[in-house]
Each structure stands twice: as structure tokens, then as C-alpha cells.
């Protein structure tokens, strides 16, 4: 079973193991615009760009490999014109699904790195076709990709609903639920202020203005 955290220096909350296993299952299963093999290969391309390991994935068009690599290893260098070029080839929904996959993979891999554990091996892809479910309410707006409602970080992946749901699933156990973010005096293993200092420094190192 993946994500048992046997090599962790401390006990890891079981909800994090369940969360990561759910994400691994999502990764291997046909998504909305990419099938299971392609989704796993997007993850492999992301890791290859970030850590320099693994071989180039074979099931993906070159532009998808480029998108996975950029969102994984140099997100601060991404510009609107580049996104428009990628979307011309792939379409915005396929690009957004890549962003979802690579961003959650980055979270899982960094969690392992921070706690001194090796990254988990990629899952075996499941057969099947992507659902190709269109999001009828998504519109272009102030951000670079269409989304449902106004430009908001919680809606960033809403062009592909399954990716937006997966983002929110990850957010709660690793940090706070969207609702819980209003609790500024929250205290668990860290105080809220300590959590926010860690978050701010992470964003500074990543050169993320948002």
C-alpha cells in the first residue's frame, strides 16, 4: 500500500496517507481530458523536469511535456503568452488538467522531501477513456484561463471540475479548509501565525506574488 510513511521520522496523521492514496488513485484513473496513462506520464514529465529523473514519457505530445515541466519546475517564469500558445495546441481544459496534476504532485513530493522520505513510485495507469465533460459555466476573465465565477484561487481550476475538487481535497488536510482559513487564532501543531510564516516563506522562495 502506498503512503504508509514507514520511513517518516515521526508519525504522520492517517488522514494525510488517505489523502495521498486518493490522489494516487485519481492520477492513475482516466480524468476529464487525459486518460490514465497520459495522466501518469504527465506526472513523470513533471518529476523529470523538477528532479531530473526518469525517462521522457512516451504517450504525450511534446507540448504537454513542456507544460508539465514548466508548471512543475519553473512556475514563476510562466507568462500569459506562453499559456495562450500551449492552449492553442492543447486547449485550455487539457492545460488546466495538467496544472492540477502537477501542482498536487509537487505538494506530495515536497511533503516527502521535507520529512526525509523518498518519493512514492508512480501508480499503474487504469484503462478507460477520459470523460470529456465540458464546463458550461466557465468564462474568460481576469486570469489567463477560463473559470467559473470571478477570478479566485479557489476557482482557478474550475474549468475542469474534477481538478478543482481535487485541489480543495488537498488544501484541507495539508493546511486549512477553505472555510477554516477565516480562523486566524487557529492552533494545532503550529499556531496560525507560524503556519502563515511558513506559507509566506514558501511563496517567497517560489517567487509567487499571489
Amino acid at each position, binding site marked *: 500500500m502506498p503512503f504508509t510513511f514507514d520511513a517518516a521520522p515521526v508519525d504522520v496523521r492517517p488522514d494525510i496517507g488517505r489523502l495521498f492514496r486518493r490522489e494516487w488513485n485519481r492520477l492513475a484513473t482516466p480524468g476529464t481530458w487525459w486518460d490514465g496513462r497520459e495522466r501518469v506520464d504527465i506526472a513523470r514529465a513533471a518529476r523529470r523536469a523538477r528532479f531530473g529523473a526518469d525517462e521522457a514519457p512516451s504517450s504525450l505530445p511534446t507540448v504537454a511535456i513542456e507544460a508539465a515541466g514548466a508548471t512543475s519546475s519553473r512556475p514563476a517564469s510562466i507568462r500569459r503568452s506562453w499559456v495562450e500558445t500551449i492552449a492553442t495546441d492543447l486547449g485550455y481544459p487539457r492545460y488546466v488538467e495538467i496544472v492540477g496534476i502537477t501542482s498536487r504532485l509537487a505538494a506530495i513530493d515536497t511533503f516527502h522531501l521535507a520529512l526525509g522520505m523518498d518519493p512514492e513510485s508512480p501508480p499503474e495507469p487504469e484503462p478507460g477513456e477520459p470523460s470529456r465533460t465540458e464546463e458550461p459555466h466557465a468564462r474568460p476573465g481576469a486570469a489567463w484561463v477560463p473559470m467559473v465565477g470571478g477570478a479566485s484561487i479557489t476557482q482557478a481550476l474550475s474549468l475542469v471540475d474534477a481538478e478543482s475538487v481535487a485541489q480543495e481535497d488537498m488544501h484541507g*488536510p495539508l493546511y486549512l479548509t477553505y472555510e477554516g482559513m477565516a480562523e486566524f487564532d487557529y492552533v494545532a501543531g503550529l499556531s496560525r501565525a507560524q503556519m502563515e510564516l511558513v506559507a509566506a516563506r514558501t511563496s517567497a522562495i517560489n517567487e509567487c506574488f*499571489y
Partner: protein
Amino acid sequence: MLRASTEVTSTPLDPRSITDRSVDPLLPDGSILLDFVDAALIGDDSERSATRSAVLAVVGPTGLVDAAGVIANFEMMNRIADATGMPVGKGTLKRTAEWRDLIGINGLNHL
């Protein structure tokens, strides 16, 4: 979020420490936590091991896992924000102008 959490809980903080590691953050165990973030994202195995031990000593195992979780979550959120060109709202820009100047992050806005 950082500003609000320190104000609500009357926790001391020098926000310049976010971008200038020579500045004492003043927040309890703040320097140790910042060292851990740096090691996790741009350090080597030996730095990660040393800073993990230091975090463990001051905030315990639950705090260490929480810190790793927050770093992980913002690795995700930073990528989503950058890759989708998420703008910061006008209200937030206005509220945070003084802090952004102090921290020196205005140059990171590439929208």
C-alpha cells in the same frame, strides 16, 4: 493571512524576515521554521535533516508534520496561481501595499 493572524493573536512579527533571512522574524520559533522551509525547498539532505530535528525539538512531531503540510500545500497553490495567471484583487492590493513595500515583493508581480 500572515498579517491578520499576527494582529488577531497579538503575535510579534517582522515581515521583512520573509524575504531577508538576516532579519529576526520575532515570531516564536520563527527562525527555526524559516530554516526548515529553506532546507525543504532549496537545501540539501543534510540541511533538511538538521532543520527537521530543530523543528521537532521546538514544536514536536505534530508541529513538524503541520509545517511539512503547509509547505506542501503552498507548493501546490503557488503553481496553480502562477500557471493560471491569478490576479491579486484590488482590495487585497490596497490592504497589503505597506507590507509588500516592506517585504520587497512587488517585482514578483508578472501579470
